């Protein structure tokens, strides 16, 4: 096998050393660290972006929380206002109802008074009318002309 010929060792080792040295010092060293730096920079950038996103998220969460709280207090204040207004309105309505009831009570009392007067007047005329009608009936039945005072007295006795 040519691999085990000692005469072949030295030329190969020497050229390997030369070529590998060129490869390492003239090819790898000037080029690869550039890519390494870019990779590191990218990793740093991505990590930084992720951090920024994280901070933005916490900030947004805080804002959201504050917004919710603001909404809550505003809602409560509005509810209190609505309740106050409702109470006030109902109080005013009640007062007006009371006033109105008083006015109606006065009017109905007045009407009752007028009714009573009318009834009394009617009652007063009722006696005389009854007496007249009775007198007429008596006259038709008996032909007697009785004095009105007698008839009235008789009717009063009947009652």
């Amino acid at each position, binding site marked *: 096998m040519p691999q085990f010929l000692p005469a072949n060792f030295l*030329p190969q080792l020497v*050229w390997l050393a030369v*070529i*590998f040295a060129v490869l390492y010092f003239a090819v790898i060293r000037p080029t690869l660290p550039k890519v390494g730096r870019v990779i590191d920079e990218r990793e740093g950038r991505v990590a930084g972006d992720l951090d920024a996103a994280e901070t933005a998220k916490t900030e947004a969460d805080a804002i959201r929380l504050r917004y919710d709280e603001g909404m809550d207090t505003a809602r409560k204040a509005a509810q209190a206002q609505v309740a106050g207004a409702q109470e006030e309105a109902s109080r005013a309505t009640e007062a007006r109802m009371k006033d109105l009831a008083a006015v109606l009570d006065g009017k109905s009392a007045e009407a009752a008074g007028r009714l009573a007067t009318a009834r009394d007047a009617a009652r007063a005329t009722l006696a005389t009318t009854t007496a007249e009608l009775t007198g007429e009936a008596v006259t038709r039945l008996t032909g007697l002309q009785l004095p009105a005072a007698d008839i009235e007295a008789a009717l009063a006795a009947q009652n």
Partner: protein
Amino acid sequence: MANPMEQFSIERIVPLAVAGEDVSFTNSSLWMLVAMLVVAAFLYIGTAKPQLVPGRAQAAVEYLYDFIRDMLRENVGREGLKYAPLIFALFIFVLACNLLGLIPFIGAFTPTSHIAVTFGLAMIVFVLVLIVGFAKHGLHFFSLFLPEGTPIFVLPLVAAIEFLSFLSRPFTLAIRLFANMTAGHVLLKVFGGFVVALGSFEALPIVLGIVPLAVNVALTALELLIAVVQAYVFALLASIYLNDAVNLH
């Protein structure tokens, strides 16, 4: 049929000698040079204008580099990242040599099928481990051979075994890669020889020749896999050995 070992022969393209020693530019040197140039093109194009949002070429370089860095992070830890360029160099050089050697044409050559080359690469790893280990831990680095919790009466034996296994690392690293590459290319060559031999059989030349050809197609796919896997294994073992030097187990 041609000898399947012939493909591994070293041709001296430009005979050179320094201080009486043979340092000729051979076909092995040529293909290492080609591999280096391919890697250089790949890297120089990919990193010409590094951008935060990478283009195709940069994404390809980043993909491979991230792969090596993840491997080091996993096996060595954050401290291992500074060796990423060297491990990357080993990985991509082995990968390029393995893959370029699979292009089927006359004159194709796989430097990593030669033990001299793989041993040289393994020695880079071995020397790196020694330098990092002693620079970081001084003589304390020898505690690598004294696993914790070993009973005192077997300690010398365990230490001897650990020391031997440590010394054998460059050899296993070198032989694994060399053997895989050599075996694959021998297999391809043998079946390639079958295509010629059976294809020139007078009765039914096409039918008989097509079977080893189909096998060779399948073998080429397998060898592509092995080329990538062996480059990966080489880099993985290098980072595992590096972990010993950095973290002492």
